[in-house]
Structure formats: C-alpha cells, structure tokens
C-alpha cells in the first residue's frame, strides 16, 4: 500500500483525508469541499483501506458503523419480541409438548407462531447469542479501527497548519493586524489563563484542551465488552448458580449447585397479620382478602462434609439460620433465598387395631410415612406388621398395587395383623377410605389421625460475575461522563504571509462555549473577526452587538 506524501513532507498512510501533520486536504473530495470533515481527524480508518483477503473483508464488515447500528437494532428488536409472551422459563411445564400446548391455549394462533419460531426461548437461542456475539465483535473491531488512527493523528498534529486546513474549519477568521507578534503573545497568555495547553511554532499557536474527552466512547466500549465478558463467564462452571430445592420439615439434603453443603430444615413458618395488627395498614383490604401474610420463614441448619465425599454421613455443622424473604442464608458466595412453600404434606398416620365383633381396641400405632417401621408391637400378644407401603397409591396394575410417586400424597398399606386369636395373622390392604381383604378378617386397622408437615421452596444463587458486571458498568459510565462533560477544543492562530492573522477553531461539541472563549481571547489580543459557518445566526448577533 502506498504512502501519501504531503507537500509538507509528511508521509501519511494510504486512505488519509487530511495530512496528519499540517492538515492539508489530500483527497480530491476534501480539496473541493468548503468545510472539512473532522471526524477521526481525517485519518485513514484502516478497515477502509485494505480489502485483500477474506479476513480483511470480515474485519471491514464488523468495522462498519452502519453494520454495528443494524446489529444493535436487531438485538433490540429481538429482545423486545422476547417480552411479548412469557419465556419458557416461566411456563409451569417441562415437556416440550406441554409447553407448546400452553402457548396455544393461552395465546391462540399468535402463541403457536411464537413457539414455532423459537421466541419462547429467545435469550438462550443460538441465533440470539450469535447476534449478541456479533455486537461484541462489532464494538471491538469498530473501536480499534478508529481509536488507533485517531490517537496517532492527534499525536502527530503540527502546531502550524496549512492555510487550506485553516480555511476549511467551521470557525474561521482572517484579517490584518497592526502587530501580529504582540497579538500572538497576548493570545498565548490569555489562552493559558483559560487553561489551554498552548504550543507555539514559527508564528503559529495551537491551543488545545480536553483531548481526554475524545477517548470517552472507547472507554465506554471497553466497559461494554467487560460487561459482555461477565455474562459470557456465567456459562463456565463455578461462576454462576441458580437452582431451586424443595425441603421438608425434618429433612436433610444436599444443596443443589453447592457440592459438599447440606441443609436441614427444622420448620417452615407462615405468619399472617392479625386483625388488630393489620387494621391500620390494610384496613378494608384485610376484610376483602381475608388473610395477609406477614412472614415466610424456614429455620435451617447448614452442614458441610469434612472430606467432601457425597453420601458420607461425616458432616460438620456450620450454622443455624432463619431464612426469611430478603434475608438469605449466606455461605461461601452462595445465597439461599426463601421463595415458595407448600403446606400440610402427610407425614405420619395413626391407626387403631380393632376387633370387628366387639369394636374393642387392641391398641394404637403411628406409621411414619417417610421411614416406616416393619413391626408395631401393641402389647398383649397383638402386633401389626407392615408388609408393604405405597406412598402415592394409584390403583392396581397386573394384580399389584402401584405408587405413582415417592411422595406420601395418597398412602396405602398392606398390614398383617397378628393377635392372640389369629397368631398366623390376617392380611389387610388399607388405603384412604378403602380396605380390601382377601378373606373375611376378624380384625381391622382403623385410621385415627394424621400428622402433616410443611415444605419450603428455596432458591440457591451464586454469581461470581457480579463484580465483573459492576466493573463493566462503572467503566461504561466513566466513558459516558468523559465524552459528555468534557469537550475537545482546539484553536489555531497563525500569521499569514502578509502580516495578517488567521484564526480557526474546532470542537467536538458545544460550539457556543468555544465561541465564548475565542471572543475572550479576541478581545484581549485584538484578533480578527471570525465566523461560525454552520451557525450564521451567531455571527449576525455578534455583528448586532458591535453596531
């Protein structure tokens, strides 16, 4: 690729619009234009220049701001579509067929289309991830392609610019001066007072401030990239955990997603506001709704294995804690939240063995439904053996009672009743509101009462990426502030060939303030009048002031 040699002797990279050093326009287009385009200082965006290999072509694709904006629009549009109907995560089914039916039932034809197009699982779909990935790629490549040439050309800029550069600036003025050297000295003094960095060279001044502001967008993009990186890390094991568990009162179980940790639930508490308590706050609402919950709480003990081997009973108590809504149990980066509950699951049933003829009781016994005993001795030679147990009895299949789950939702039992009268025992099948006997028995088992327990629904969360996301967010905001609250201002003043003075200025934003500062310098150093060629109104006003 050929270098472009400027008349001033500086070698510019191919594709440069304005000479990096003196600012002479180098392209035909720039030479013809009245005002130069100062974006990226007229430097050569490298992506625009090399178009050789396929890699260069891909690079140029992502470097384009147009493409970048299109990707942003696509991400925004798809993200918005994903919020029209609930995502798959919030559908109370797990089988695909059930999920499809759910969308059809609730949202009709639109729901079917939504499901078929995969919008129900938008944010984890491969094409959405590709879109976000392309956005990240675009941000990185477009930034790198712009920040490097911009940095280089700002670093290489000369104090003395060519007159063709000066003349093409938005703010420009020229005029005779009685004593140009004195004017320049005074201008330098004033500009320094206005906190400009002033450089001088051979009858020319370059005053610059706030160059720092030009890096704002790139700092901002760095923050975005760090943020995306944090989201990406959530996919790595150990960085992000979001699990749920159901735990029953009195139960001890391994915590999903937190290997080596165990939780024992002692009690689930649901408290409601009493009428007196709630009168002031809820008033009529309480009467209308009936009950207003005050507290959801699970009292737990946290344990840890000593050697980390699953299945071993060698546990070490860590702490007792009451998990309340918004007050999670915290341990080594994990948070366990109170999320849900179910009340009154059967826990134990108490029965009575009775003589059918006399209706007399031979004693009572209680079957623990979680861990039933084999034999219940009632004394006086009477005993009940539990032969088999069906926690969730669901009828008889192939001559065999069937349990449809391990949960004691509908317990059924096969009892063998051994009494002094019937020492070989009588068999009886007992389910809720049902007793089956193979032959007529003399004794029966009566249901007396049941004990229940509550179940807590807990959520286990761990997010190591939170600090990365926070860092990304902070850097993002720094970039925004940097680009918004500071302006990059430059003022060029130099002597012309016939002792006249030339003034030109440029800023990336807030031209009004720049004009005010130039006015101060102008009045102090008797500089020629200038005009803002993009804001003629400001010029007429100034002339009005003078008149």
């Amino acid at each position, binding site marked *: *690729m050929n270098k472009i040699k400027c008349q001033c002797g500086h070698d510019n990279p191919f594709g440069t619009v304005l000479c990096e050093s003196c600012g002479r326009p180098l392209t035909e287009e720039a030479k013809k234009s009245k005002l130069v385009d100062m974006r990226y200082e007229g430097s050569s965006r*490298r992506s625009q220049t*090399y178009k*050789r*290999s396929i*890699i*260069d072509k*891909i*690079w140029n694709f992502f470097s384009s701001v147009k493409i970048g904006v299109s990707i942003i629009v696509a991400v925004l549009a798809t993200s918005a579509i994903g919020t029209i109907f609930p995502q798959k995560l919030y559908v109370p089914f797990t089988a695909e067929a059930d999920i499809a039916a759910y969308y059809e039932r609730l949202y009709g034809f639109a729901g079917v289309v939504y499901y078929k197009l995969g919008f129900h699982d938008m944010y*984890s779909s*491969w094409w959405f*991830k*590709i879109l*976000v*990935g*392309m956005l*990240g*790629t675009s941000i*990185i*490549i477009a930034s790198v392609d712009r920040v490097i040439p911009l940095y280089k050309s700002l670093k290489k800029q000369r104090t003395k610019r060519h007159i063709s550069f000066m003349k093409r600036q938005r703010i420009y003025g020229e005029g005779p001066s009685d004593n140009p050297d004195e004017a320049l000295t005074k201008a330098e003094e004033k500009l320094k007072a206005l906190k400009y960095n002033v450089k001088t060279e051979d009858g020319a001044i370059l005053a610059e401030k706030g160059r720092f502001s030009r890096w704002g967008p790139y700092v901002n993009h760095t923050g975005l990239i760090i943020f995306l990186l944090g989201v*990406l890390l*959530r*996919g*790595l*094991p*150990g960085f*992000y*955990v*979001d*699990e749920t568990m159901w735990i029953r009162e009195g139960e*001890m*179980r*391994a*915590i*999903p*997603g937190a*290997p080596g940790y*165990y939780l024992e639930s002692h009690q689930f508490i649901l408290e409601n506001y009493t009428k007196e308590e709630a009168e002031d706050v809820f008033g009529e609402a309480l009467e209308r709704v009936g009950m207003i919950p005050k507290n959801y709480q699970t009292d737990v003990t946290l344990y840890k294995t000593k050697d980390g*081997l*699953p*299945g*071993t009973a060698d546990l070490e108590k860590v702490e007792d804690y009451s998990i309340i809504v918004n007050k999670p149990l915290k341990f080594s980066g994990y948070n366990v939240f109170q999320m849900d509950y179910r009340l009154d699951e059967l826990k134990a049933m108490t029965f009575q063995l009775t003589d059918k003829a006399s209706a007399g009781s031979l004693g009572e016994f209680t079957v623990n439904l*979680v*861990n*039933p*005993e*084999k034999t219940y001795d009632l004394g006086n030679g009477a005993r009940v053996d*539990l*032969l*088999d*147990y069906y*926690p*969730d009895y669901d009828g008889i299949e192939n001559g065999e009672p*069937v*349990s*449809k*789950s*391990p949960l004691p939702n509908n317990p059924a039992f096969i009892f063998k009743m051994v009494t002094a009268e019937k020492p070989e025992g009588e068999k009886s099948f007992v389910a809720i509101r049902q007793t089956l006997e193979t032959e007529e028995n003399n004794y029966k088992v009566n249901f007396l009462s049941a004990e229940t327990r509550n179940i807590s629904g807990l959520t286990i969360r761990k997010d190591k990426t939170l600090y990365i996301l926070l860092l990304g967010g902070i850097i993002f905001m720094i970039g925004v502030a940097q680009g918004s609250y500071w302006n990059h201002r430059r003022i060029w003043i130099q002597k012309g060939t016939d002792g006249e003075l030339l003034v030109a200025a440029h800023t990336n934003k807030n031209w009004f303030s720049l004009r005010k500062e130039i006015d101060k310098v102008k009045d102090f150093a008797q500089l020629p009048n200038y005009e803002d060629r993009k804001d003629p109104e400001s010029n007429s006003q100034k002339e009005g002031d003078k008149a």
Partner: protein
Amino acid sequence: MAKSAKKNKRLVIRTITLAVLAIAIIFSIASKDKVKVLAVGDQAPDFELIDLEGNKQRLSDYKGQGVLLNFWGTWCPPCKKEFPYIENQYKDFKDQGVHVLAVNIKESKLKVEAFRDQYGLTFPIAIDKDESVKEAYNVVPLPTTFFINKEGEIEQIITREMSEAEIKSLMESIQP
C-alpha cells in the same frame, strides 16, 4: 520486504482477533448456564453409601473393575421393568469383573427392601438419603444408568429404560 511483513502481521492480528471472538460466541452457545454436567469420558465422582446389608459401598473401591451404576425408585415403572434384566446380567458378569450398584433416591428402607425381595435382587442396593450422590451425578430422570470402566471413567450414560441385549452389550463394553 518490509511492506509484506507488515501485511502479514496485520493478517495474523486480524485472524487471531476474529478467531478469539468466534470461539467466545461458540462457547456461549455451547454452555448451558448450569452447574457442571457430567459427560461421557468424565471421571465418575467418588461417593460412599451404606447398602441394605450395612456394607460400605465406595465407588473407588471398584477401581480395576467395570461398574454399572443405576439410579432408581420403587415407584418408577421402567425401573421395575429393567431390574430383572440387570439381575440376570449381573449373575453372568459379576465373576468377569463387572459390578452392579443400584442407588435408590431417598425412599424408605422398608419400601426398598420389599422391592428387593419381590424381585429377588442380589446386587448391592444403597439408599441416597440426602440426595448428595444424585446431585453429584446430576441425575434428573429415573432410571439413569452410568457405565463406568475400570479406570473410573464414564463410558455411557443412559437416561431411559434399557433392553436386556443393551445391558449385556454395555456391560461387555466396560469389562476390564
């Protein structure tokens, strides 16, 4: 000379940058937003449970032998169907270095023993009372069967009912 070196450098930098970004995207698609899920080829996590006979069953004690590790429940119909097949194959394979270990998820001893007696099962059965082994193996549906080779690596994971022929060929595959 210098020019072509610069061009090469540019090509290399651009290629590497694009490749890194492409890998990041592929990674984000492949990752499941979950805790580590066991896959074929992984080392089977070690555990220790007490079986119905009161013996310690530690997976690492079976190193050098193949292990069929089955997670099941008495209430699960496919478990009932495949257990007689597993029992048959166990009788053939136990002297050829392939073991069977059945892990029941959190049921009562009474229920599990009644089941064992009903089906006449002779291989060791242990109850995972606190579901820690289930969590370590990320078991979701029942039955789930892991075929573990003599190095302790997972050869195959089956998350459905198996036929007897299937069990036989898979047990052959982990035979030391």
